[in-house]
């Protein structure tokens, strides 16, 4: 788990140093989707081979739906008072 944090911090540091190297950064930008495709492909393979996942797939889908509904409802509930607060007349310019 610590390797994830180390990779991330290392990347941020190097990214900060490479800020001016636009061509190198755009190459990295183009590589990233490929890596994500590969990872999701591998994730698909291991999930497809996982009997526990296959047996419970409809239950897992329902849980996923409920958790996203909870997260969306919670964040929208807080956004309503924040919207009122930020759009008070004296704050009009900020929004």
């Amino acid at each position, binding site marked *: 788990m610590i390797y*994830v944090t180390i990779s991330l911090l290392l990347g941020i540091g190097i990214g900060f140093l490479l800020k001016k190297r636009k061509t190198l950064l755009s190459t990295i930008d183009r590589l990233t989707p490929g890596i994500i495709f590969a990872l999701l*492909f591998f994730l698909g393979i291991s999930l497809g081979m996982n009997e526990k996942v296959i047996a419970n797939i409809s239950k897992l889908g329902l849980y996923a739906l409920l958790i996203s509904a*909870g997260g969306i409802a919670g964040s929208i509930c*807080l956004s309503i008072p924040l919207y009122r607060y930020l759009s008070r007349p004296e704050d009009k310019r900020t929004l």
Partner: protein
Amino acid sequence: MKSSVFIILFFIIGFLLGRFSLIPERIARLQIELWILYALIFFVGIGIGSNMDALKLVKRMHVKIVLVPVSIIVGTLIGAGLVSMLLSDISLIQGLAVGSGFGYYSLSSVIISKLHGETLGLVALISNLIREVITLLFAGVFARYFGKLAPIACGGATSMDSTLPIITKACGKEYAIISVFSGMVLTFLVPFLLPLLLSIG
């Protein structure tokens, strides 16, 4: 949007190959993915380090803009936490971890499946994908009934790219910059927050 379709396509092809045992067991069990994950996280880090535009936006706008992503984080965690307490199979930390993807399904599903387990990884993939799809479908409705920050809140991390066009259409151009800022903060936060949460659970 186009890349989302590709990502899901790759996932489904992999899933079918795994399901019908078309991949030799030995190859599928290699720990190559873990190293690809570190490489991805490293590249995500480079993206964050080289792109500090989010900080410049705060300077240009009022500091209050920070309240937008903060409220989305708090609201999402409360909502996802409450739901997970009702579900007997999902612990609070697991529910919070799934919610902490904020719609960034590709990264959150891979991190969760590697650091915690494949089953929860699948829940994270579906759950965060649903968040993006709901934003795409209902941004207009949310803006009308709950105010113009609601579509940005629903979009979470996706409000900086895949759902930005629909949010801009629903809320108006003046909200595009808030949408990008909020999405950036949440996108940057995912690789920090997830390992932290999963190390507790």
